[in-house]
């Protein structure tokens, strides 16, 4: 399991996740990203993220199991037909300055990792999102923790 891994985020996926966060400014939002492993043999390994599936914007549904299980199952089935699988999970915190990855995000990330060893968790940077809306900053709005060898989610730069 090499540590080098590149993720190519398709525009549709990126726009969907940014818009999802913007539509619910007062709540935490989360969702799944689907894609495929482009070329497992090359180094760095490239994962293409093709689409985003927004999950929820209700703060009290986030850490609850049944909806997540259903979502993972149904999304896997649906996109499996197209040869895609769940590769990432994205999350945006409700509080503006909260830059921590909440426990629930780590758990979902672990779950996805069991299925797809190159899973990643994307945390939206709320400050950057705000600046992007105002047109000031064109940097991507995600922070990008990946799974290190010691099973912890560490941050890496986009």
């Amino acid at each position, binding site marked *: 399991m090499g540590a080098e891994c590149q993720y190519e985020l398709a525009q549709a996926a990126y726009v969907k996740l940014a818009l999802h966060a913007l539509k619910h400014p*007062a709540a935490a939002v989360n969702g799944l990203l689907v894609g495929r492993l482009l070329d497992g043999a090359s180094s760095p390994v490239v994962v293409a993220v093709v689409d985003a599936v927004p999950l929820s914007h209700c*703060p*009290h*549904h*986030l*850490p*609850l*199991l*049944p*909806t997540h*299980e*259903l979502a993972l*199952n*149904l999304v896997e*089935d*649906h996109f499996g037909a197209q040869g895609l699988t769940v590769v990432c999970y994205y999350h945006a915190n409700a*509080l503006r*300055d*909260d830059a921590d990855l*909440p*426990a*629930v995000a780590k758990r979902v990330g672990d779950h996805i990792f069991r299925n797809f060893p190159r899973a990643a968790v994307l945390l939206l940077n709320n400050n950057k999102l705000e600046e992007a809306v105002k047109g000031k900053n064109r940097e991507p709005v995600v922070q990008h923790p990946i799974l290190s060898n010691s099973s912890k989610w560490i941050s890496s730069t986009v």
Partner: protein
Amino acid sequence: MAAAAVAAMATAADDEARLLRLEEQAGHGGGGAWEYLCLARKLRARRPDPVLRLGLALLNNSSARSRLASEQWTLYEQVAVAAMDCHRLDVAKDCIGVLSKQFPGSARIGRLEALLFEAKGEWADAERAYALILENNPFDQIVHKRKIAIAKAQGDMSLAVEYLNKYLELFMADHDAWRELAEIYVSLQMYKQAAFCYEELILAQPTIPLYHLAYAEVLYTMGGLENLQTARKYYASTIKLTGGKNTRALFGVCLCSAAISQLTKGRNKEEESSELQSLAAEALLNDYKQRAPSKEVLITNMLKNMKLS
């Protein structure tokens, strides 16, 4: 009793639909702005952008404002709060200025001023202002709730929980507060405590399906055979209270049955449960056939997997 709950939910949905329709209409200059604002106030809907735009338009139009007469002050208050939500603090300050000239020394205006501190992020000033109001009226529910909101906004969840518990000792019948506490517990993954809150809510208002559904979900998340069986019962009661229309509850019954059968593999299976599961599965399939036929295949596959597992 169940019929009344369904009827109440139906009128709530109607109101929501009417609110959105009025918002569209008024937004395109089709009139009905005042009706929209009144409905938004009644439903306590949080729609700051349209409220701000339409409210300001009304207030700046002096002839429309004089037609409102005494109601204009409520409008000022509504617009001030919406302005703070949209971070238009200048507008909020103006509205509060007008109101405090009209009603000097009023506690209601004092709350708005403290809210403005909150919006600016000046937590210490806000807390001081609220403490002052509480000195005069220690049972001001709204101010207590704002203190909890400040704790939440600063990210101090344990403080928010502590305040909320103290609040509930005083105001045990405030259902929204119990719900808020349950949600915070869930976000902190303290599921047992969240379950307790939902139990209180179900005891107080047993005909509201939302509580049954939320309770079932928390139980499912906690896991374990007993919890799953109780969760299935509460999903079932949600289905009964909503007349079979709640998709999440239908899914919930299927998920619970699948999880229970996995846990009881090899032991004596209960016979009564299979009827519930097949009914729920059938209802789910029908629902998808009617509303989302393209996704029906997904559901059929999922149900097949569950029955096998």
